[in-house]
């Protein structure tokens, strides 16, 4: 009495799989293709342990930011403030560590602050980031101001705040242990920064895809009114998503401080667009409700590998910017084609 249940299931399954690979997995295939091309053309340089390490270190900070952005975009929002919040958190954290180390006067070199002080600095960075995220979330969920406007506003406020706190001058005295053991350190040959990023990615991926909380984030992004009427605490979910993005920016701030040995006030203007394009490239829909952390990881690595490959091949690195723009447009186009095809279903 209903659909044609007699339809051959095997054929449909292969069709399904093919469809999903072509639409969802194509960006992963692109990554594999890029890797293969560069590996074949320049195996010694591109495949060297040193290069792989540099690639992953370059990706580490973006990965942490982009994972937070993934949650936000799946909830049908956007967070433009991530880069500024990173800067704000890094200034707060480094200023606090400098003050606690009793070396407030000097602003060069390193301090010999112990792990206790560093831990306080980490907590301060994460809390500062989370505070901006909570503000974003409150204004978006409760005051119902569009996320684009709210995070555009806090993007300016957080950067300005960081510049007020630091007089616009980078804090260049970091605890030596932070820089040496976390920024440049490695455990079992894997850089600590990469380990931190991997931990963030794995935990965030599990929470998003395996827990009730994660599913509700998808539901909110897919149809906010349906989620509300089903009894999901929509406002709390939205606020939490932005708080998470802010906290991730706080973690990324510590990583940046550790890596560069200084705050990088002017170095994160493009972080928001970099992470958004990574998330979208990874197949997460800008309309919310669909996406994955794994896709975001792929989306983070594509521009980094492209740039790295171009540099090794001697192609002017400016071409990477051009290529990335084209790939991004392609990614969104494919996403929309996919949606149209699915709707026709």
């Amino acid at each position: 009495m209903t659909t044609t249940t007699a339809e051959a299931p095997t054929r449909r399954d292969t069709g399904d799989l093919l469809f999903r690979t072509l639409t969802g997995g194509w960006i992963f295939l692109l990554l594999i293709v890029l890797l293969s091309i560069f590996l074949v053309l320049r195996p010694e340089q591109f495949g060297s342990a040193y290069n792989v390490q540099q690639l992953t270190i370059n990706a580490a900070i973006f990965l942490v930011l982009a994972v937070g952005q993934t949650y936000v975009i799946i909830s049908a929002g956007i967070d433009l403030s991530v880069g500024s919040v990173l800067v704000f958190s890094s200034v707060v954290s480094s200023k606090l560590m400098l003050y606690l180390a009793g070396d407030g006067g000097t602003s060069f070199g390193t301090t010999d602050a112990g792990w206790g002080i560093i831990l306080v600095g980490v907590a301060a960075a994460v809390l500062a980031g989370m505070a901006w995220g909570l503000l974003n979330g409150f204004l978006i969920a409760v005051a119902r101001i569009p996320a684009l406007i709210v995070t555009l506003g806090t993007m300016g406020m957080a950067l300005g705040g960081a510049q007020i706190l630091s007089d616009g001058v980078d804090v260049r005295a970091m605890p030596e242990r932070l820089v040496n053991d976390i920024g440049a350190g490695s455990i079992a040959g894997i850089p600590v920064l990469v380990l931190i990023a991997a931990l963030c990615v794995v935990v965030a991926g599990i929470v998003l895809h395996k827990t009730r909380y994660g599913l509700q984030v998808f539901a909110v992004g897919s149809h906010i009114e349906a989620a509300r009427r089903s009894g999901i605490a929509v406002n709390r979910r939205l606020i939490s998503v932005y708080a998470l993005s802010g906290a991730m920016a706080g973690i990324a701030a510590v990583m940046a401080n550790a890596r560069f040995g200084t705050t990088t006030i002017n170095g994160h203007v493009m972080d928001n667009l970099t992470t958004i394009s990574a998330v979208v490239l990874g197949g997460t829909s800008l309309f919310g409700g669909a996406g994955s952390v794994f896709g975001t990881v792929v989306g983070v690595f594509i521009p980094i590998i492209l740039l790295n490959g171009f540099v090794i091949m001697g192609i002017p690195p400016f071409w990477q910017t051009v290529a990335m723009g084209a790939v991004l447009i392609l990614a969104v186009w494919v996403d929309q084609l996919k949606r149209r095809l699915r709707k026709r279903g």
Partner: protein
Amino acid sequence: MTTPLLEATDIHRTFGHVQALRGANFSVMPNEIVALIGDNGAGKSTLVKILSGADRPDTGSIRVAGETMHFGSPYDAQQAGIATVFQDLALAPDLPPAENLFLGRELVRPGFAGRLGFLDRRAMRERAAEQFQRLGVHLKSDRVAIETLSGGQRQSVAIARAAMWAQRVIILDEPTAALGVVQTQRVLDLAKRVRDQGISVVLISHNMPQVLDVADRVQVLRLGQTVANLDASSASVDDLVREMTSGTAEEAA
């Protein structure tokens, strides 16, 4: 006489100068499909909103199984065993059917993993499959997003969800308005099956032959008042049209 599962008495509701409801009565008995019909502007939507908890009457009482209730929200109505499927269906289009059935009521794994919030997707899929089986809803796949399904199938998922969580009554607001002939028939069959599971169904519809075909009883609204309460087996389309266009409240009493 048995107590109605859901009974609204002398409901009045005014918006500014518009008297949407002027003493409407409505009742749902156990194990029946009641159709609520009326011309545009007769007050159907307002009455549905009040019955489903989305709006409150100015005066009048709502009783569920004989007990007076004051619904502050659709959630209150759901707690009382009454679920409504509005025309927008309130499904999450990107999520698969099982996840939609358990929206806001997700199942978690037993033990410690459950306390951490880990989903039990397998249990959700199994119980969703049971529910679809019971109600004769056949979906091409239980993994694909709802938005890839046809309009009738989406409607079926929404109804199956309502029937899963409502103990007493589900209200279907124009469930077949946007559907073709075959899909309409499927949704109506589904309504019958829901009734056979012991949940009464309120069907709001414009389509009179359809109403007579599927409903046990038909209540007619005209100008905010209940003007007729007919046995569907003995009424004709002409009777319904007459009541909709010229019925008066006295006849209904």
